[in-house]
């Protein structure tokens, strides 16, 4: 789980942000402007949103010199441990970046996060700014504990249009289409799907999508609620069986369990013409754009939603992935710092200028009414597609390893790895997960 977020923070960036990431080594925080100690402390991650947050801070501090904020940036993996230690010791920042889901719930359960529901309810315009499906990710026990701060990252099926033209095929609409394509590409000597199986988390995207397409969002809701036997739901069993079916049919490129997703090798297989398709989060787009600009500009990169499953209960528009990163307010902060924090979240984050900066960096903010602005941005085809699919999604499921507690997340990834590798049968997988959830 740890590597996955490094790479997300890393991927959602692009070349410019890469330079920033590289200069940000070490786990000590970096203050953007002003000395340490001045203003309300905000902890955020290096990477894609860093530039946007920096200018947001500068604008805010200029307008509110008495209630300044002090943003410090950390690299993902050291950040997670540092935050846990700092907040565990009662020494944390007033605002901290997080991913919502199960990890945020850990902090809420320990009484470390301020409830933002009353503030949001008081200000309907503020609450109405965000996509409800994204806001819901930071909801714990029906209360809002954090608000989104950057772009949505749904998982889509990327494909190589050249290779599809070569075998005369269309992107798959249904699961049966996908299986048929596997045979056609194999016959043509092309790997149907690339995947970074060594990193384990790409495996999860298949299970998440298939479970939703077969059984709808309720199946995972039961799992997250720790209902007994939730992992043995027929939908999970069927999804696991379909995964085996795809692996056994040779759907994934040879040696996929040795391929590391953190070093973009699966995407490289796609744009070098070794593999026809790649199921990956939207952060792969800037990666491919950086590594193979002509491939994208000549229109060879295609994208499509995950195929539907015949007779399945899930809506074809349902999404999985990373809805967004979030800012939460610490319950340990003083009353004054808390007021500043909430005001900053309300007026300093995801305001007009902030949204403009995000779009410039190639991100799609989960904010209503951006169609016009996205249509005039560079790479508008891609941005508009992501915006549209996110807006119309009835359910936007956060990656399961983030949505569950960290202990379950790790067990899930390892067992899933064994399912893909054939060391566990679908039934054994469900049983192992049920046992771990007890």
């Amino acid at each position, binding site marked *: 789980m740890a590597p996955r977020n490094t790479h997300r923070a890393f991927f959602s960036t692009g070349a410019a942000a890469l330079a920033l990431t590289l200069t940000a080594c070490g786990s000590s925080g970096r203050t953007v402007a002003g000395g340490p100690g001045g203003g309300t402390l905000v902890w955020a991650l290096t990477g894609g949103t860093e530039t946007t947050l920096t200018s947001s801070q500068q604008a805010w501090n200029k307008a509110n010199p008495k209630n300044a904020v002090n943003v410090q940036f950390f690299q993902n993996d050291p950040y997670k441990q540092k935050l846990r230690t700092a907040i565990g010791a009662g020494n944390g920042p007033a605002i901290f970046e997080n991913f919502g889901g199960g990890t945020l719930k850990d902090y809420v359960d320990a009484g470390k996060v301020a409830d933002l529901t009353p503030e949001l309810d008081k200000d309907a315009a503020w609450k109405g700014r965000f996509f409800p499906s994204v806001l819901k990710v930071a909801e714990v026990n029906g209360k809002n504990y954090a608000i989104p701060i950057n772009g949505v990252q749904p998982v889509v099926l990327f494909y190589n249009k050249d290779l599809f033209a070569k075998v005369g095929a269309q992107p798959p609409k249904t699961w049966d289409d996908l299986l048929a394509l596997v045979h056609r590409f194999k016959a043509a000597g092309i790997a149907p799907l690339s995947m970074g199986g060594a990193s384990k988390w790409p495996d999860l995207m298949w299970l998440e999508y298939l479970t939703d397409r077969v059984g709808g969002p309720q199946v995972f809701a039961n799992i997250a609620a720790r209902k007994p036997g939730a992992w043995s739901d027929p939908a999970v069993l069927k999804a696991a069986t379909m995964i085996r079916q795809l692996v056994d049919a040779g759907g994934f490129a040879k*040696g996929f*369990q040795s391929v590391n997703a953190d070093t973009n090798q699966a995407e*490289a297989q796609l744009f070098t013409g070794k593999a026809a398709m790649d199921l990956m989060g939207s952060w792969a787009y800037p990666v491919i754009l950086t590594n193979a600009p002509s491939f994208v500009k000549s229109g060879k990169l295609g994208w499509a939603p995950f195929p539907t499953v015949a007779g399945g209960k899930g809506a074809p528009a349902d999404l999985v992935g990373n809805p967004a990163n979030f800012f939460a307010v610490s319950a340990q902060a003083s009353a004054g710092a808390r007021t500043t924090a909430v005001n900053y979240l309300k007026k300093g984050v995801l305001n007009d200028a902030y949204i403009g900066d995000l779009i410039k960096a190639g991100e799609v903010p989960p904010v209503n009414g951006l169609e016009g602005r996205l249509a005039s941005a560079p790479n508008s085809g891609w941005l508009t597609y992501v915006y549209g699919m996110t807006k119309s999604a009835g359910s936007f499921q956060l990656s399961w390893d983030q949505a569950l507690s960290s202990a379950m997340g790790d067990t899930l990834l390892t067992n899933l790895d064994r399912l893909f590798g054939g060391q566990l049968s679908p039934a054994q997988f469900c049983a192992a997960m049920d046992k771990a959830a007890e």
Partner: protein
Amino acid sequence: MSLIAKAPGAGGRRGPSFAMAAPALALFALFALAPMAIVVYLGLTKWDGLATPAWAGAANWRTALTSGVTRHAVWLTLKFMAISWLVQTPVSLLLGVFVAGRQRYRAVLAVLYFIPLLISSAAVAIIFKNLLDPNFGLGAALHLSWLSRDWLGDPDLAFATIVFVIAWQFVPFHTLLYQAGVRQIPASLYEASAIDGAGRVAQFRYVTLPQLRYTIVTSSTLMLVGSLTYFDLVFVMTGGGPGYATRLLPLDMYITGFQSTQMGLASVVSVILVAAGLVLSLGIVRFSGFSRMRSRQAGA
């Protein structure tokens, strides 16, 4: 004269006074003993790193001793230790004897050969991970089908690959030990055995090996205890995968503690590691007579 006669042996050991060891002992107590005591305590609690640790009694110990994951990690570590020793010892012994020769080309080879020692484990891991990549690695680049196997994705192969890469990294170090050991052997022993009609193989068997006995003990201790702590290389190369195939105990401790945030359970695993390390080094020292070790230099 009297000073020299008195120094070793007679009248019991008279080393530096205890006061001189005090600073070192204080540091050891602060940074080794105290954390160890805290870990033993944490092993008896349930703690996610956020809330206050809650007393859990022996629950973590029960979980660790009955859980398939930890038991598998223990078994894997033992297997890893044995195989690593069996692979590394003969190779470094023979190489050590070889580079101990005085010929110039051997000195050049030895220098080249020690390069892996200078590279950090993380770098070694990243280099090998890229070389072994099935799509863009060495096998694919040179079109060698036997090289483009699923080295890190197949559970059995992944374990063997890890053993190999760790051997690649650490054999030079043990070679260095053996080289030094061989160079300490008095030439007179070889001359005497040559007069008695011993060939090269017989000399190796009856002179070199017995003379290297303590070097073998030292090197084996370092190897066996060291294999309890191999973490960085495995973490970077496989992260313990595929499945649980390369999840050695230290890695299990890290993943349980910092990724699954079950600090109590991870503390139990680390107590097991400390105990295993202690038992192992004490065992080797007793079993091999290391504590009664004397110089084997002729005339000493």
